[in-house]
């Protein structure tokens, strides 16, 4: 009961599921839920195109592009982190995890700035159909990203504590973070670019 | 080793609580002759205007003491530890409903107090609050029914040479549960024995609750005395 699992870094076997297979259940299930949200949005958008286009023109596309690149960069960092951890270079891996967190924070700040700007423009959760979806989708994604910081905390703890180190858990946390990233890629495309 | 210290203290709070409850019951003018669901809005409003003070003070009392039975229920839950059960699951069931039932009653007192807070408001509003109070009070039996059911089942499963509670207590709980059930249907009619002022939904239900409290406290007192004596003997022997 008291002894922790002794996970020593080993070379990856020929083919293995990254992280706990259970996390992949979450990835697939949560993707379905988001597909449903985005599908509902696209369906209603297609029926009220002028209103949506008009409201959508208040968004700043390049800000969305910057958001996306920031999150992609954080994903890249955590992918490097996993590789370094696998190679047993835990200090480098931890540095990559901090870089990931930094880009995550930048994303959160950018989102808050964008929300504040839209609210000042008079675009709120209840002002128009488009902004209902905008605030809902960005906010629920925001919550996912906040949970991502919990995952990062677990990951850093795994890397820091010699007794805990479990490559599986590191990969599990990274898988969660990538999921938050690719969900944003979808949200960005349909909110900012779809016409 | 069971720790029974203080259980007698909790048990002896019951007579005090009972006195307060009985006082509050008779202080509230809507209980002694239960208010009729057939009263018009004007009659209901007049009732709240004429008895404002008594309604307020009785309901404030009940507001304070509606949770007073929880410590007694926890005594029962502690006794359940001694039953010949494999799992604590029935205890968890009891704890779950023990909290919900007083909160439901608390909600009813809030509606009564709200109606009496401003008796001069439009009669229809007073009647609405009065309806909500009575429906919550009368129909709000699910947790009590379940409580009796869980306890009966716990006693039935307590198969040992010296069961914690006598077997008849289990059957008694079933009878009480059955007596409480019709009150859940009080919304269906405004007249007759099933209406919220009727023989079944009001008198049978509330007498059943009173009877349950009396009988269970006597049974509990005996068990607690028995355990306390056993503890004393063990202390002397040790």
């Amino acid at each position: 009961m008291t002894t922790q699992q002794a996970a020593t870094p080993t070379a990856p076997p020929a083919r293995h599921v990254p992280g706990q297979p259970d996390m992949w259940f979450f990835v697939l299930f949560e993707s379905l839920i988001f597909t449903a949200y985005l599908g509902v949005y696209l369906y209603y958008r297609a029926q009220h195109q002028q209103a949506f286009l008009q409201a959508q023109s208040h968004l700043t596309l390049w800000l969305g592009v910057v958001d996306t690149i920031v999150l992609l960069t954080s994903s890249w960092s955590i992918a490097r982190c996993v590789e370094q951890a696998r190679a047993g270079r835990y200090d480098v891996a931890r540095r990559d995890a901090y870089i990931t967190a930094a880009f995550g924070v930048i994303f959160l700040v950018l989102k808050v700035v964008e929300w504040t700007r839209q609210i000042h423009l008079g675009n709120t959760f209840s002002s128009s159909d488009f902004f209902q979806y905008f605030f809902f989708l960005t906010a629920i994604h925001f919550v996912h990203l906040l949970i991502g910081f919990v995952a990062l905390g677990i990951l850093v703890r795994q890397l820091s504590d010699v007794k805990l180190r479990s490559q599986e858990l590191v990969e599990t946390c990274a898988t969660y973070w990538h999921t938050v990233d690719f969900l944003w890629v979808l949200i960005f495309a349909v909110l900012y670019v779809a016409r | 080793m069971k720790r029974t210290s203080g259980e007698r203290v909790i048990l002896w709070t019951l007579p005090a609580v009972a006195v307060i409850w009985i006082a509050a019951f008779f202080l509230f003018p809507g209980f002694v002759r239960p208010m009729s669901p057939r009263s018009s809005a004007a009659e209901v409003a007049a009732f709240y205007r004429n008895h404002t003070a008594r309604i307020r003070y009785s309901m404030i009392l009940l507001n304070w003491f509606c949770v007073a039975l929880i410590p007694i229920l926890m005594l029962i839950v502690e006794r359940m530890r001694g039953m010949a059960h494999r799992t604590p699951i029935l205890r968890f069931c009891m704890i779950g409903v023990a909290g919900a039932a007083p909160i439901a009653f608390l909600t009813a007192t809030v509606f009564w107090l709200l109606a009496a807070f401003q008796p001069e408001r439009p009669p229809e509003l007073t009647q609405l609050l009065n309806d909500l109070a009575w429906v919550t009070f009368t129909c709000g039996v699910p947790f009590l029914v379940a409580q009796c059911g869980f306890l009966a089942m716990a006693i039935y499963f307590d198969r040992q040479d010296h069961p914690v509670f006598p077997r008849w207590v289990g059957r008694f709980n079933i009878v009480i549960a059955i007596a409480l059930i019709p009150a859940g249907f009080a919304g269906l009619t405004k007249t007759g024995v099933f209406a919220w002022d009727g023989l079944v939904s009001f008198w049978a239900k509330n007498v059943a609750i009173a009877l349950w409290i009396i009988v269970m406290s006597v049974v509990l007192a005996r068990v607690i005395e028995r355990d306390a004596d056993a503890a004393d003997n063990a202390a002397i022997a040790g």
Partner: protein
Amino acid sequence: MERLNKRLLAVWAILTAITAGYLWIDHSAVHGGRAQASTVVTVLAIGLATLKVRIIMREFMEVRRAPRLLCRLTDVWVVLMAATMIGLYIAGRILAR
């Protein structure tokens, strides 16, 4: 000093390039200073986004090194997501007429 993983860098560069490509798509959807509704732009945006999702899954999430079942499952999912979104958008457009 650890070696830079060139493959991950290339993946990041491709993903960023596709993202920047959205600026060009958006530009092409504007006619006469006003944005127009466009099924082509929407389908292209969703298509590129799901392509990016697949790249993220394959490379960043290391699905390419995972058992074939997970490879196929994620591919099915990418197609499912794209088809659902595009299908509902087109269904909405048809119903709007």
